[in-house]
């Protein structure tokens, strides 16, 4: 186990800079998830940590040791790839043992270690099988087993669940989380799926266009998004953002709607976006902020999403699943003041 530190990491391909100075400290045993849309630089960052991509500038430290100029094998890391990268011509056992090839461990110890890992991953009966005789989830476990067998300081996962179907993905998510609790290694996990990020991470790193947008616990990035990108990216459905102006602690929205934002401190007068998550916005609750006509309902069982046409634009709110308003009903939507977010229109940065 070890800490990981990225210091002003940059990456360029020719004259194009794709990572613009990534800095991050990961604690020993922490589960950190990099999340962001395609092309945001999360996989590049991971590959640079692994030593599969050269670093243009900046420093990578693993366990307090600078590893920039070390080969991947010397970095004490293991990686699980999106396509598993398990060798089709080798049995499960040989695939797992492959990680120990360059180890100087005595043969009986290697055998013991393989059995131990197979036991943890519930694969003892599969050891003699070839990868083409395994299901997607089993293949993924073999890939994790090959990484685990070396007991590396840092585990790197590059979108390992994206090739699995939804049910298996949920199951593997749980297994990886349990595995982390059991072995306690530092894990860096890359995904484009915000649900994966929210459910697995100790801390989430949200990236866009080669920049870190926010680093925080799942609760922090959900409840205190640093900017409009994070507000939109995290949470499904994403946060409602209504254009308007701020004056003191009152937001004036389109259609002459006024919303008091007591949490706002001295923002002056400027163009803003008022954000409120559908999960925090309910019809006929206390502290009404905006009214409108229900134009669509999406029943989800325990709750129903309602699409409401307001003078300030269309917004989504959550209603009770048993007695939701009907399409055509006029509703007053309310939210607690602490759940209202104000973002600067120009920079997108949060003001609350």
């Amino acid at each position, binding site marked *: 186990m070890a800490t990981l530190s990225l210091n002003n990491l940059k990456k360029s391909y020719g004259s194009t800079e794709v990572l613009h100075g990534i800095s991050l400290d990961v604690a020993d045993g922490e589960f950190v998830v990099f999340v962001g849309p395609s092309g945001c630089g999360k996989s590049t960052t991971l590959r640079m940590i*692994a*030593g*599969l991509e050269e670093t243009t500038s900046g420093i990578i430290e693993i366990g307090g040791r600078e590893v920039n100029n070390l*080969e*991947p*094998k010397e970095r004490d*890391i*293991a*990686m699980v*790839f*999106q*396509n*598993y*990268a398990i*060798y*089709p*011509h080798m049995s499960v056992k040989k695939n797992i043992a*492959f*990680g120990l*090839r*360059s*180890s100087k461990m005595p043969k009986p110890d290697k055998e013991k270690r393989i059995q131990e890992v197979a036991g943890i991953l519930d694969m003892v009966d599969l050891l003699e099988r070839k990868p083409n005789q395994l299901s997607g989830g089993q293949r993924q476990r073999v890939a994790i087993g*090959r990484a685990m067998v*070396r007991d590396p300081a840092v585990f790197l996962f590059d979108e390992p669940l994206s090739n699995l179907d939804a049910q298996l993905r949920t199951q593997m998510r749980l297994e990886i989380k349990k595995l982390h609790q059991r072995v306690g290694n530092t894990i860096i996990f890359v995904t484009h799926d915000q649900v994966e990020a929210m459910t697995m991470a100790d801390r989430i790193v949200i990236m866009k266009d080669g920049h870190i947008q926010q680093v925080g616990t799942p609760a922090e990035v959900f409840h205190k998004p640093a900017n409009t990108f994070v507000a939109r990216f995290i949470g499904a459905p994403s946060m409602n953002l209504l254009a308007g102006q701020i004056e003191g602690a009152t937001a004036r929205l389109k259609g002459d709607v006024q919303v008091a934002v007591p949490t706002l401190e001295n923002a002056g007068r400027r163009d803003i976006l008022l954000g409120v998550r559908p999960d925090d916005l309910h019809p006929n609750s206390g502290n009404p902020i905006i009214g409108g006509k229900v134009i669509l309902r999406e029943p989800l069982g325990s709750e129903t999403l309602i699409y409401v046409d307001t003078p300030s634009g269309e917004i989504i709110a959550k209603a009770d699943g048993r007695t939701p308003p009907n399409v055509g009903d006029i509703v007053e939507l309310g939210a607690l003041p602490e759940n209202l977010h104000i973002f600067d229109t120009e920079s997108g940065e949060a003001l609350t």
Partner: protein
Amino acid sequence: MVAAPGTPRASSDALLNTQRSRRPRNMGQIIRWLLLFIGGILMIMPIAYMISTSLKWPHEVYNVKLIPDEPTIENYTYVLEDGRFYWWFVNSIIIATITTICNLLFDSLVGYTLCKFRFPGRQIVFIAILSTLMIPTEMLVIPWYLMSQSFGWLDSYWGIMFPGLMTAFGTFLMKQFFESVPDDFIEAARIDGLNELQIWWTVAMPLVKPALAALAIFVFLGNWTAFLWPLIVTNSVDMYTIPVGLSGFGDEADVAWELIMTGAAISTIPTLVVFLIFQRFIIRGVVMAGLKG
């Protein structure tokens, strides 16, 4: 009135339509089979004549009959008892085998490097290698000969083998096959601590076995039947390969076709066996080299 489906009228209409649409397809099929049949005959006839001639007496050789009037195995006895043929056979085996092994190693190493490594000039090197495919052997034999002469390689195994130890075609074939090996495999092996040569040997090579089998057959057959260069570079009869040796059967006044055909028939056996075993790999190899990339 429209007949309901399933009524005799509907069924007969359907039958008529099917017959109409089948007729041209059948004609097309007949033409295709005819062409294939002609092609097959054209390919089999020389082999049939080779075997037929090898079973004829000298006076019957110029008789075009496929079945000899008086079949004999005398030619086989003569050729097999002739010490020269034995040496030519051994020479051919040694040359074809060593060249095949070298091709498998060198072509796959170069193919792998060109496919999986990014370095300046990679594309130029690949194009340069490919462009050598456009130069016919006939143009190369003179520089090869001058080279062999200056290095003292004339009339030696090395002299016969060196031009074919690595081929542009083999490099291209292997490069195309290595494209199908995911980069993740190589990177995973790198992280697991293997060096580049170990990755090539342990991870990449087992995954391109069909290509190696196909290349082995191509190279083996090519060298087994090579004629021009072995003829030029060898002087002593003991260094001849089978094709060169066979061409010398007979004397100045007459060519002993029955003996040449007997030798050719015997020399076909190993290649035929190799081909029958590995033909599915050949087809896959050709398809991959032709369609991928």
